[in-house]
């Protein structure tokens, strides 16, 4: 089983991700319990307030999880790249089931029992704690169970904003088009969901049979909290205190390799510890991370920086594009360092078989097939001004069908498999060769230069000169061929990113400054 092999070679990382996952789910569920039960009690007692609370909780639940994370990212105090934003989103999702079952549980208490409590001289508070909550407890536990199980699933998505957890394997696997890596994250996540479900089902049954009381449940929760605290402490201890440089990357293979390369180069300088937040869900999230200080450095591309980050037209000249990006970054307290050496421009790709049969050579030639072909593009490419809209304008293309929008990682196999006929990919992708694809020439020079440049927080650069030395060591040392080779090593040969990066770095001499 390749998955088992994967787990064995990634033992340490797997345990860390599992820990992060458990901590995220547990803490978010606990917070949701702390908010949800009182809210449910209030809702059960005051029907009008109750309706408002339930409507609000239901509305929050309907926001798709990725969108919710996107909304939360720019919010001050709770937003930002990392587990905090994920926690807020997870809490919001966990609230509805808990509030709803609390309300149901309390409303379903036999009125005769309530009447007895009142006639016995119980205060409202005593009635709640001695009668209503204990009798609602099985229902509430059922709600917590639903919330926790949903939480395990939703937490996998939190990896997109750098919160960690088992979702990292899933996203990494998606970006590498590697089922093994996807399964390496998906299987433990499913197992975790099942065991959380089983444990809480057990607790629920014990309470229904009267073997566990409110106090017992509280004790169980406290014990679980203690264990998870120790877990969390261990996780924090592992990341440690002291000076930390945080390296980010977007969520495709090349970016992950570059992030790892950067991280190792900085580590090689000594003096600081490096935290990796690789596989973040896109340009926006990485840029946001830099500006809020959650990230110290990641690799951007000149064309993307000028157009997608700063919404300006990109100069066609490579040098000018870099200078423009550097100036724009300087205004917001970020430093663009010297290009790494390769230009990862967009490549318009078709199947080599089609190219030969139809004699396609340049993007212009696509006009011959625009009536029948199905284009497929990544979400970012479809949206960005320097992507699809500009492409069809420049080449006067009129595709008969709407382009299929899909995950970047799914585009290559979709083209190779014939679901789509033309895509925009990365010029450095290893898949171009292995999937027998052909790049059409950009004869009208539509695509601007996309030279890879490390972008650093200027403040971090001053505080940690190690970063500057590490970046100087990499500057100009990675050619387009080198990058394609690195990508191939990971995507095709399935070699671990860490090892690929280590091997490459060993070839580069250290720089004295």
């Amino acid at each position, binding site marked *: 089983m390749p998955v088992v092999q994967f787990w064995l070679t990634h033992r340490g990382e797997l345990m860390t991700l599992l820990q992060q996952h458990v901590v995220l789910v547990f803490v978010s569920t606990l917070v949701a319990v702390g908010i949800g039960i009182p809210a449910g009690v209030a809702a059960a007692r005051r029907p009008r307030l109750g309706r408002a609370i339930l409507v609000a909780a239901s509305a929050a639940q309907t926001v798709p999880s990725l969108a919710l994370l996107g909304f939360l990212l720019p919010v001050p105090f709770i937003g930002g790249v990392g587990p905090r934003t994920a926690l807020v989103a997870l809490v919001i999702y966990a609230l509805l089931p808990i509030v709803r079952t609390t309300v149901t549980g309390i409303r379903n208490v*036999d009125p*005769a*029992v*309530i*009447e*007895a*409590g*009142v*006639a*016995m*001289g*119980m*205060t409202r508070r*005593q009635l709640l704690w*001695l*009668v209503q909550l*204990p*009798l609602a407890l099985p229902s509430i536990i059922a709600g917590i169970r639903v919330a926790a199980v949903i939480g395990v699933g939703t937490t996998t998505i939190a990896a997109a904003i750098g919160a960690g957890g088992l979702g990292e394997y899933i996203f990494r696997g998606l970006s590498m088009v590697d089922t093994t890596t996807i399964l390496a994250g998906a299987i433990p996540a499913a197992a975790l969901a099942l065991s959380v479900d089983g444990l809480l089902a057990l607790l629920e049954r014990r309470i229904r049979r*009267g073997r566990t*009381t409110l106090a017992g449940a509280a004790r169980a929760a406290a014990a679980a909290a203690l264990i998870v605290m120790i877990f969390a402490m261990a996780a924090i201890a592992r990341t440690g205190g002291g000076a930390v440089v945080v390296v980010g990357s977007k969520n495709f293979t090349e970016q992950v390799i570059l992030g790892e390369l950067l991280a190792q180069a900085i580590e090689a300088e000594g003096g600081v510890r490096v935290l990796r937040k690789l596989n973040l869900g896109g340009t926006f999230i990485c840029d946001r991370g830099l500006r809020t200080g959650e990230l110290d450095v990641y690799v951007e591309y000149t064309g993307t920086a000028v157009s997608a980050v700063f919404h300006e037209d990109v100069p066609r000249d490579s040098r000018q594009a870099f200078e423009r990006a550097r100036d724009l970054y300087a205004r917001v307290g970020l430093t663009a360092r010297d290009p790494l050496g390769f230009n990862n421009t967009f490549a318009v790709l078709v199947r080599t078989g089609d190219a030969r049969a139809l004699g396609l050579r340049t993007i212009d030639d696509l006009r011959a097939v625009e009536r029948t072909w199905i284009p497929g593009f990544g979400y970012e490419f479809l949206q960005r001004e320097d992507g699809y809209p500009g492409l069809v304008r420049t080449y006067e293309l009129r595709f008969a069908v709407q382009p299929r929008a899909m995950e970047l990682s799914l585009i290559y196999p979709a083209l190779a498999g014939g679901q789509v006929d033309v895509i925009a990919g990365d010029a450095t992708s290893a898949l171009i060769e292995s999937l027998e694809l052909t790049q059409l020439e950009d004869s009208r020079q539509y695509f601007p230069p996309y030279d890879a440049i490390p972008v650093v927080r200027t403040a971090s650069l001053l505080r940690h000169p190690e970063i500057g030395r590490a970046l100087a060591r990499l500057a100009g040392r990675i050619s387009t061929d080198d990058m394609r080779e690195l990508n191939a090593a990971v995507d095709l040969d399935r070699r671990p990113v860490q090892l690929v990066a280590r091997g490459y770095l060993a070839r580069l001499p250290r720089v004295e400054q």
Partner: protein
Amino acid sequence: MLVQLDRVSFQYSGHPPVLRDINLSLQTGEICALVGRSGVGKTTLLKLVNGLLLPTAGTVLVEGRETRLWDGIRLRRRIGYVFQDVGLFPHMTVEENVSIVPRLEKWAPARARARAHELLDLLGLPSASFAGRRPPALSGGQRQRVGLARALAADPSILLMDEPFGALDPLTRSEVRQEFARVQTQLHTTVIIVTHDIAEAFALAGRVGVVDRGELLIYDTPRNVASSGDPRVRAFIDAVPPRLPH
């Protein structure tokens, strides 16, 4: 007087009166039974005594003090309450149910426990085998006795009983009723019992009141009630095959 209702009326605002001009008094140790058809205001009268409702006119005095001046929680802790549905707490054991008011009153745990066991034994539910059971595992008659024990646990000065035996089959009903009569003679608790069964009222009570459409038609000894010439009282008594006391 332990309980005294003086020209008491009650109505929910915007609705016709539930009770009109009720005068009634009760001395320590007395048992009073209120009979009448369902929905004539008997339960409302009980709720006026334990302060869950306050009269819209007139005064209700408990231990010489108006109910509107009592702290409702304190008042209800001094008054036992038993009703048809019993309302035992299903998540608590029999012992926990019986000792609930003593525990609310912060009795020492050992004392509350001893009291619960004493009452269970007294009501024919040997504590050794019943204390640890839960209500769902009890028969209807057993539940009713636990409910009675619970109402008596904190030595209430008054016991209110609302159709306490209404849900029981006839045999169990007379059994529990006899049990109750025996216990009452031992404890000398003051009791107001509401029932639609006039035979039950005559069997248990020293004083019987007949309630009809919010009015107390008569409030007297069973013998005087039985021989009343009031046609409305007569109609009620004659409708039921009487088993007169001697």
